[in-house]
Structure formats: structure tokens, C-alpha cells
């Protein structure tokens, strides 16, 4: 397939030569793909702002002999990146989503449809501003990890299945643990924070938004610890995340 069509979200760009960029895309059918956008840094470029990070586009790509494809056409589906660039806090949340998506798609050209749909949905929700950005991010991270095989057990004890909620989380074991199974190194957590994580994972926004700032901070810390445990290297965008 020398020329193919797909839709995708721009994860990241980097300059190439004088006026080109390498664009890392997360596509619906072809997974993560890297492609060259020729002449894109010139102000006369026909691509305009469509291939900036977090833009959702319909693409035509040319598959080359190397691992790099070439973008031949890009039609805008939704300008999430442009909307989020005007709000620093939400932009940093989107950056964490994009970097997480890149890290969870470890192999190029391996489709990951559920993760792709989560990313598009997450960016859309973030751009709409209908829910607090910190909660949108944490919901995305919990679900992204879950569809990638690292789901956090939040309802029952991860070891024995004793119905919860339990006020202890073991990042290494993969979720909440009951008092009997609680391993060394498990973190104490408030029941409210564990409840919030479950609401975010299951999409109960009414429950999630009824929480206070302290509970949100605590659950965000647990999500960050869980995320870092499953990604070998730390995320570069995470230290820059600004929570409202």
C-alpha cells in the first residue's frame, strides 16, 4: 500500500532540516506512524496548523521504503490542539495524554483502536471544558492503562477478591488490597480517593465531580504513581502538568 488513507491525532512533531517536520501520528487503523511533512514550517505551507500536536485529522500518507511515511494530504477533523493552546493548564493535561499514548503504543504500525478512541474522546472532553481538566486527565490515564492491559483493580481486593472498597492501594500488585492481603509497601488511601478512582474508571462524572479538592489531589497522586510504575521511564510532560 504505497498510498493509504487514515485518520489520526498528532502526538508530537520535531523539526527536520530547514523547513520540514517529522510528525508522530496515532492513527485509527495503522497505530502509531511517523511521517514527514514537507515544507510545513514555511508560512506558505498548505498544511497550515493542521499537523500541530493534538490536532485530529483525516490523512493521506505515502508509505516510503524507510520507517518514515510522507504526509500528502491532511484535512482537519477537529482542532483540539488549537483550542487547548489558549489555556495553559488544559494544554499541559493534553501533553500528558499525548505522551502517554505514545508510550503505550510501543510498536509502530500496530493498531490500538480502543486507546485511539480513548485519546480522541479525552481530547474532545478536555477541549469542551465540560469537566475539570484534572479529572478528565485521570479518567483518561486509568482507562488508557486498562485497555493496554494494566487495569487498576478498584472494586475488590486485587489478591483475594474480597469486595471493597479498601483503604489501601498497592501499585505493584495493581489495585486496592484488603487488610489481610495488604503487602509491605502498600499505600494508605482514603475511601473517598479510592471511590473517585472507581468513578473515573467507570465514567461516573456526577460522583467524581462531587468530590473535594483534597480527595482529587490524593487520587491524582495515586494515578501518577500507578502510571509511572507501568511506564519504564518517567513522562517528560508530567512535571509540567498544571492542575487547576
Amino acid at each position, binding site marked *: 500500500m504505497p498510498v493509504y488513507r487514515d485518520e489520526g491525532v498528532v502526538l*508530537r512533531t520535531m523539526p527536520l532540516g530547514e523547513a520540514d517536520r517529522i510528525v508522530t501520528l496515532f492513527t485509527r487503523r495503522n497505530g502509531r506512524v511517523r511521517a514527514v511533512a514537507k515544507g510545513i*514550517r*514555511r*508560512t*506558505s505551507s498548505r498544511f*497550515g*496548523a493542521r499537523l500541530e500536536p493534538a490536532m485530529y485529522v483525516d490523512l493521506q500518507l505515502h508509505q516510503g521504503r524507510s520507517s518514515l511515511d510522507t504526509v500528502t494530504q491532511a484535512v482537519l477533523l477537529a482542532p483540539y490542539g488549537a483550542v487547548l*493552546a489558549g489555556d495553559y493548564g488544559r494544554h499541559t493535561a493534553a*501533553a500528558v495524554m499525548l505522551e502517554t499514548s505514545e508510550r503505550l503504543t510501543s510498536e509502530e504500525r500496530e493498531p490500538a483502536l480502543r486507546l485511539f478512541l480513548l485519546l480522541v474522546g479525552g481530547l474532545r472532553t478536555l477541549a469542551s471544558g465540560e469537566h475539570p481538566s484534572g479529572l478528565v486527565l485521570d479518567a483518561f490515564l486509568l482507562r488508557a492503562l486498562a485497555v493496554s492491559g494494566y487495569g487498576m483493580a478498584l472494586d475488590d481486593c486485587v489478591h483475594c477478591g474480597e469486595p471493597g472498597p479498601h483503604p489501601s492501594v498497592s501499585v505493584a500488585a495493581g489495585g486496592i488490597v484488603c487488610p489481610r492481603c495488604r503487602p509491605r509497601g502498600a499505600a494508605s488511601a482514603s475511601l473517598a480517593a479510592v471511590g473517585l478512582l472507581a468513578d473515573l474508571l467507570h465514567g461516573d462524572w456526577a460522583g467524581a465531580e462531587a468530590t473535594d479538592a483534597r480527595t482529587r489531589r490524593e487520587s491524582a497522586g495515586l494515578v501518577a504513581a500507578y502510571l509511572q510504575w507501568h511506564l519504564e521511564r518517567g513522562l517528560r*510532560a508530567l512535571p509540567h502538568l498544571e492542575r487547576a
Partner: protein
Amino acid sequence: MYEGVVQDLIDELGMLPGIGPKSAQRIAFHILAADPADVRRLAKTLIEVKEKVQFCRICFNVAQAELCRICSDPRRDTTVICVVEESKDVVAVERTREFRGRYHVLGGAINPIGGVGPDDLHIRELIARLADGSVTELILATDPNTEGEVTASYLARQIAPMGLTVSRLASGLPMGGDLEWADEVTLGRAFEGRRTVSP
């Protein structure tokens, strides 16, 4: 792989931005074939640029002295500051002859995925420059792409409580490009048509 010093040269050149292994090899063999006097001049300039050029104490533009040419020029308007990402953008704006104020060079743009946050740029120094109230207008001339927009919106938010006019280059600059590629006429028009931003 080539022997010893030839490979060293290829490796060194390959670390420069925008130069891949093939270009590095091409430049290395160009240098090998070049006139010794030309190569000596290039080497001398490389050393001189590191020894003689510094960054302006006020605006972080490249300078041959403690202050750059613009900050030490008494005819420049000290009430307006144009904020740019790099020194090359100062050159681009100067070419338009539209701007008579001073500059502030941030040293890049905010890019969380690239690991660049506000603290990695000369933003604190910019806020300090604004503290005495003598500057009344700030023009945000960061690149018309996502990184530049994010940087501009961050700055607009930080500066809002200080009560000065903050504007952003607008008309004619298409989004997605780099400022250095804008021609003088387009960039000049963007300066004239700058719009006030409110965060």
C-alpha cells in the same frame, strides 16, 4: 565508519541541528577537499563566536558586549517590549522596520512533551523587567504554532495582573509555521494589525 579524525568530524557535524548522518558525511568531505585557508577561517570564526559573543544582560539577545546593540541604543523606545523565542526572531522583526522598542528573548518556547516548562525560559527575568512600571506595552511575537501560542497564553496570564497592554501578532501570519520564514511585508503587516489579548 571512517578512520580516526575523519569519523570524529562526521560525528561532531552530525550533532548539529538539522544535520543527519548523510549530510554530516557530505560536509566532512567538503571540508577535507577545501582550501586550507578557508578551513582555518571557519575554525577561527567558530572559536571567536564562543569567546566574544555573549547574551545581553537585559534582553538575552546575542551581544558583543554586556548589552546588545538594541538595548544600548538610546533612540529605542523603552516603553514597549517585543517578546520573541530566539535571537533569529529579533533579526526577522528588525528587518520589517516596524518596531522601535526593545526585545526580550525567551530562549525557546513552552513544550511539556519536550520537557520544556516556563522555568526553563527567561520568563522570570521578563516579569522582573516589567516590575518598575516603565514598560506599558508588551508584544508577544512567539512563533505562530502550538508551542508559540501556548507560550503566549501562559505569558498573557502571568502578566494580566500587571495592567499593561499585551498584544499578539495577528493578521496575515498563518498558523503552523515558524516566524523566521515570514517575509518582511507579511511580518510588518502582522505588527501593524496586532490585537490586544485578554487571558
